[in-house]
């Protein structure tokens, strides 16, 4: 959290330091690399669910397992693994459930389509009720109308 907040600052410092001396630049460039790694790690953590406290992302959770998994993400990113490879690693162990955006496949169709199906169903019911209400409005005959007109006079 904090480190990602300071990430632009660190890179900014790294850039201005380039004018001062080569050594400092090199050291700070390493820091900037760390910052970009950190940013990528955080982005991944926000996409993955903590399995211990299921309504939190890995980034939010302080469960020991979440700490371990965050460590795994950083370690694998540092080793040059891609985001895709890391999410595959997580899915292979914990299933699609770890993804906050699960893929669309036969087992998750209901999850993706369900809410829209309910919405459509709701619209259908609403339309039916409205139509029936219109048909159900009292039909006045000419005799009724003249009686009403007389009463209103």
């Amino acid at each position, binding site marked *: 959290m904090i480190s990602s907040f300071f990430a632009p600052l660190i890179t900014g410092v790294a850039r201005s330091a380039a004018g001062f001396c080569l050594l400092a630049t090199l050291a700070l460039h390493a820091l900037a690399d760390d910052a970009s790694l950190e940013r990528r790690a955080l982005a991944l953590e926000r996409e993955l669910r903590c399995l211990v406290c299921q309504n939190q992302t890995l980034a939010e959770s302080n469960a*020991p397992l979440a700490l371990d998994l965050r460590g795994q993400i950083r370690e694998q990113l540092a080793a040059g693994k891609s985001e895709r490879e890391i999410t595959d690693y997580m899915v292979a162990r914990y299933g699609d459930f770890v993804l906050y955006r699960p893929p669309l496949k036969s087992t998750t169709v209901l999850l993706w389509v369900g809410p829209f199906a309910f919405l459509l169903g709701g619209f259908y019911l609403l339309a039916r009720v409205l139509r029936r209400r219109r048909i159900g409005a009292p039909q006045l005959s000419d005799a009724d109308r003249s009686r009403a007109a007389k009463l209103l006079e």
Partner: protein
Amino acid sequence: MNKAGWTLGVFAALVLLLAIGLRLNPREVPSPLIGKAAPPFDLPLLQQPDKRFSEKQMLGRVWILNVWASWCPPCLVEHPVVTRVARAGLAPVIGLNYKDAREEALPWLERNGNPYQLIVYDRDGRIGIDYGVYGVPETYVIDRQGVIRYKHIGPLTAEVVQQKVEPLVKELTGR
């Protein structure tokens, strides 16, 4: 169908849906590891740190892997059940001591008894991650080919053993 019938039908469907939803355990994440080869490990033994053990040594046998830790209260709860399973001699029960400290785990075993054939020591929980462990205790049934056939999350109960573990192990061993 008339209106009352429709309304009743929709209501009944909703009740059914909610009833099923409420009965499901949201903590039971379906494991993608079922039907897959047990992830490989080569870990030191808890009691003999100089010796190592790999899941490959169990190839050709049906066995049970029980993940536990001394810091985990439900592990203590299931311990009598695990002990009973191990004593019944249904299948060898191997322990995986998960993110625990030797100094804590060994006295725990002394206090509560050691039903395990042997226990591997996963100090940093790395193998636990490979096995998709997220709530200790967890129990796996692994077949002769080294394939995970069943996984139970949370404490083993007599019912689970009777209804799931026992029949499966018997089927796998052909007994």
